[in-house]
């Protein structure tokens, strides 16, 4: 039979498109696995497709491909351009090594060459498969869909950015699918056209694809409706809790906090492990400008200061004692900065980078040779600062008034700040005399006034709403950002300098060796808290969030007045939650571990859930499949009721009925004609309807007279029969 498949030009166009599509598969794999020689792989694909296109017989194309693979191995692994004696002996030894490894099931001992061969085999299979789809099935949809899913998954879970790839794939795929549909349509209707006519058919297709692509590219796009799927999926696995939102999987830092609010879902991805004698709050940076919606940073405050390894740093928090503690942090995520506890004296890292301290946000960025550097393991010498209670008792409003202009940025408040916030702050602190007492009063206020800790159903303030005001007076529930921001704003309204700090809390204790505890800190432990300036004493850490115990240590012994009735118990937590479970969330820090680790973590943590889930789903699916005879008719009836009355619908419906009858147990023998089968069906059910339907069907299919069939009239008979099969 002559067919469109014989049209060489048409098929050549298809194969070129297929090549482009396969190249889209190859690119991310090459990028993510850091494989070299992309051009040589592409050449393999191109050659394979060319031979498939030319219908080269297997005994020709097979050896050529094998030769190419061998040549590739020789070229890449030994550097020889030709099969020299050395190259051949390399191949031989490598083969024997791998063969022995495979025979003894020592998978780990197989060499890279073997993996290369496997990869080539995979490519070969892909070429064959797609060749089959295009040449024989004239159908690409499945492959197209898989490609889109593949790129989407990689884009979501890996550093590979599929922004451009997905556009290319859409264009290539639409063209391919369109041309193949044209081919199927022409074969179905037995139309034979010359190439010029085919090209004319293809013009509208190309136009439509071009116009829709251009429109899609240039129209404004809505933001994502769903949160990032990674924490979303984790939350379904029941690992809930709070966590980092957003920006997972993107290398780099710089998430802005200019718009706080909204609910969060947990993310158990490990950020780092800390080996330290006692859990610490790990500071990253602070922010100073409150915008009524969130936090921003004043630019260009002071020159950055560079420190080297083991050099004493000045963070504004001095170690309490001369003798320093040691903390070892092993990073699991890539951050271009160090996290540091309060009272840090110095850092040490094997790689010996520069530590660039920015006084604006107190962040230590790490650089090596002028490049951003992402530390892996580092030591921090520190000792928690201690504060004199006596000195704190002497902090007064007068001292505040004498502070230098440097503190102005920590007193900034937006003009729009509702008056009732200021009034509330004044009310809370009405009985307090010292600055320290006022600050403690504000810190304590949330836990004694019916505020609630929650990560879900937290609103984002409207355009005319203030973030802090909304929390203090309307919702009264929220997570760390709400509490810490509110405290900073209230302190500032009392002229106490304060700033908003981001970092991680102590995390979960997972092991103890002697005096050293190991803490695991995950994205769930991202946190925000408050630093306030006590005149004459310095900056101090405050923790307003309900359920959290971060505290500056107060040296009560120092010049303590014995009859002082005030016991400045730092924490009063009537609504105490377990800090481990009430994990806090913070959108501060973002950077993901690699795709593989993420998946592996997820799988290892949820292995049983996954297994049971899969098992359950497959059991349910197979049960549904087994009893499809029971439920299919109902679906079919309503489907065909809706789908109108074309004769094409009738033929589909009839074939469906045949399938249903087969499921019911009345099998048609291969050599049995529809008519005799129908007669049997009718005698079985005591009906006449099958014969009636069959006559119409024969008239449509064998008689080529589909128009004469009145499907709407026959539908009742059809429904009657198909309903019988579900009995």
């Amino acid at each position, binding site marked *: 039979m002559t067919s469109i498949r014989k049209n060489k030009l048409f098929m050549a166009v298809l194969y070129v498109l297929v090549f482009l599509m396969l190249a889209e598969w190859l690119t991310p794999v090459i990028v993510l696995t850091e494989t070299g020689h992309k051009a040589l792989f592409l050449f393999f694909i191109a050659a394979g497709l060319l031979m498939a296109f030319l219908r080269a017989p297997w005994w020709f194309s097979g050896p050529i491909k094998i030769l190419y693979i061998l040549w590739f191995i020789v070229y890449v692994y030994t550097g020889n351009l030709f099969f020299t004696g050395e190259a051949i002996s390399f191949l031989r030894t490598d083969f024997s090594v791998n063969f022995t490894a495979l025979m003894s099931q020592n998978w780990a001992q197989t060499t890279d060459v073997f993996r290369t061969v496997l990869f080539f085999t995979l490519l070969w299979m892909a070429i064959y498969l797609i060749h089959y789809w295009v040449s024989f*099935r*004239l159908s690409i949809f499945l492959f197209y869909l898989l490609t889109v899913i593949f790129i989407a998954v990689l884009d979501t879970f890996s550093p590979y950015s599929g922004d451009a790839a997905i556009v290319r794939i859409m264009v290539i795929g639409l063209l391919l699918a369109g041309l193949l549909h044209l081919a*199927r349509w022409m*074969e*179905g209707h*037995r139309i034979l056209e010359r190439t010029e006519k085919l090209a004319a058919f293809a013009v509208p297709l190309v136009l439509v694809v071009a116009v829709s692509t251009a429109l899609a590219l240039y129209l404004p796009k809505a933001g994502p409706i769903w949160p990032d799927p990674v924490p979303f999926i984790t939350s379904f696995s029941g690992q809930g809790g709070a966590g980092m939102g957003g920006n997972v999987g993107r290398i780099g830092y710089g998430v802005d906090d200019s718009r706080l609010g909204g609910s969060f879902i947990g993310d158990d991805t490990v950020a780092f492990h800390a080996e330290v004698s006692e859990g610490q709050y790990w500071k990253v940076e602070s922010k100073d400008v409150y915008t009524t919606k969130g936090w921003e940073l004043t630019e260009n405050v002071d020159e950055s200061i560079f420190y080297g390894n083991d050099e004493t740093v000045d963070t504004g928090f001095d170690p309490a004692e001369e003798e320093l503690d040691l903390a070892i942090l092993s990073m699991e995520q890539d951050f271009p900065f160090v996290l540091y506890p309060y009272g840090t004296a110095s850092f040490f890292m094997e790689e010996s980078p520069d530590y660039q301290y920015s006084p604006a946000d107190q962040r230590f960025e790490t650089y090596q040779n002028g490049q951003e550097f992402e530390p892996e393991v580092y030591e921090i010498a520190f000792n928690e600062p201690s504060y004199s209670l006596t000195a704190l008792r002497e902090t007064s409003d007068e001292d505040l008034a004498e502070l230098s202009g440097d503190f102005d940025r920590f007193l900034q408040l937006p003009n729009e700040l509702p008056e009732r916030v200021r009034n509330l702050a004044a009310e809370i602190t009405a009985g307090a005399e010292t600055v320290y007492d006022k600050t403690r009063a504000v810190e304590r206020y949330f836990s004694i006034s019916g505020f609630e800790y929650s990560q879900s159903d937290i609103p984002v303030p409207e355009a005319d709403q203030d973030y802090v005001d909304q929390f203090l007076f309307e919702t009264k529930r929220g997570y760390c950002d709400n509490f810490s921001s509110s405290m900073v704003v209230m302190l500032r309204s009392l002229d106490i300098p304060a700033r908003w700090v981001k970092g991680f809390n102590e995390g979960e204790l997972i092991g103890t060796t002697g005096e050293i505890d190991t803490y695991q800190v995950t994205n769930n432990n991202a946190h925000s808290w408050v630093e306030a300036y006590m005149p004459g004493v310095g900056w101090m850490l405050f923790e307003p969030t309900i359920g959290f115990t971060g505290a500056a240590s107060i040296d009560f012994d120092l010049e303590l007045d014995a009859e002082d009735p005030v016991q400045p118990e730092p924490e009063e937590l009537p609504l105490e939650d377990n800090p481990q479970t009430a994990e806090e969330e913070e959108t501060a820090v973002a950077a993901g571990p690699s795709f593989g680790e993420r998946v592996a973590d997820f799988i290892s943590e949820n292995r049983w859930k996954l297994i049971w889930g899969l098992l359950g789903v497959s059991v349910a699916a197979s049960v549904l499949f087994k009893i499809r005879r029971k439920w299919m008719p109902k679906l079919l009836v309503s489907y065909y009721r809706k789908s109108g009355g074309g004769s094409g619908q009738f*033929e589909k419906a009839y*074939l469906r009925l*045949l399938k249903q009858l087969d499921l019911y147990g009345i099998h048609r*023998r*291969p*050599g*049995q*004609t*529809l*008519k*005799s089968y129908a007669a049997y069906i009718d005698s079985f059910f005591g009906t006449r309807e099958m014969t009636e339907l069959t006559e119409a069907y*024969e*008239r449509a*299919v*064998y*008689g*080529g*007279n589909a128009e004469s069939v009145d499907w709407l009239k026959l539908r009742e008979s059809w429904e009657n029969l198909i309903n019988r099969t579900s009995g």
Partner: protein
Amino acid sequence: MNAKERLEQVIDNIEKVIIGKRNIAELSIVAMLSHGHVLLEDVPGVGKTMLVRALAKSVGADFKRIQFTPDLLPSDVIGVSIYNPKDMEFHFRPGPIMGNIILADEINRTSPKTQSSLLEAMEEASVTIDGVTMQIPKPFFVMATQNPIEYEGTYPLPEAQLDRFLLKIKMGYPTPKEEMEVLNRAQSAAPIEELTSVISLNELLELQEQVKTIKVDETIRSYIVDLSRQTRQDSYVYLGVSPRGSIALMKASQAYALLKGRNYVTPDDVQYLAKFVFGHRIMLRSEARYDGITAEEITERILAKTRVPVQRLVGQ
């Protein structure tokens, strides 16, 4: 009156004299409508001649009968030119072949030379004597009978010549009840004389044209091809059905569809006719004969296992 009704009339007419052989009458008409010929293989005395005569009478056709004997010559069949001394020219004296409906009785009794003269005339629908070609009047329909080949004193027809017959039919003995009825009728006057024609020859020619318009869908054609190919692959078969056999099956199916009042062929038509079209076209190996397998059984087997097309062909 449509084609189906007219043809039903012919069959009813034949049934007045032939009892219980409606299917044979149908098949004869199918062959006649598709310009084919029929080979009846049966013992003498089961009503073969009566069938053909009734058919001829019903369509108002010219009926001739040739009794084949071992000493029959080709000229006895097709005619001979005789010298007329009066005008000193040869005049063609047509033989019995120059008729509409011919009964060639016991065709395998005569020599291959005479057999082939008949078969050539059947194929060409014309005869050539002394360089002059004479058209045989239309319609032209031959019903040949042969005794089962195992009989003594026969010259079996070669495969190539058997292929010229569209259908091979076995008449078979009547059932006891039918035979009683035959006896009843035989007592009264021979009813064959009272038959009148129900359609004219021109109408028959029209119907023959109509057969060609019957639609044979691609699916049906591929089914026919499948069936033919299967016969060539069967292990018992020495020589399968030729492409001419496939054509024969298609044409016969068209005629049968017309007879059933349809303007398209269904797989049922093909299946029904395959037995009659393929039976004499399949040459069996000797193993088949040892195993007692006949060509008809092979055909049945192939029909049972070949997938009936139930969907439009798309793509392939």
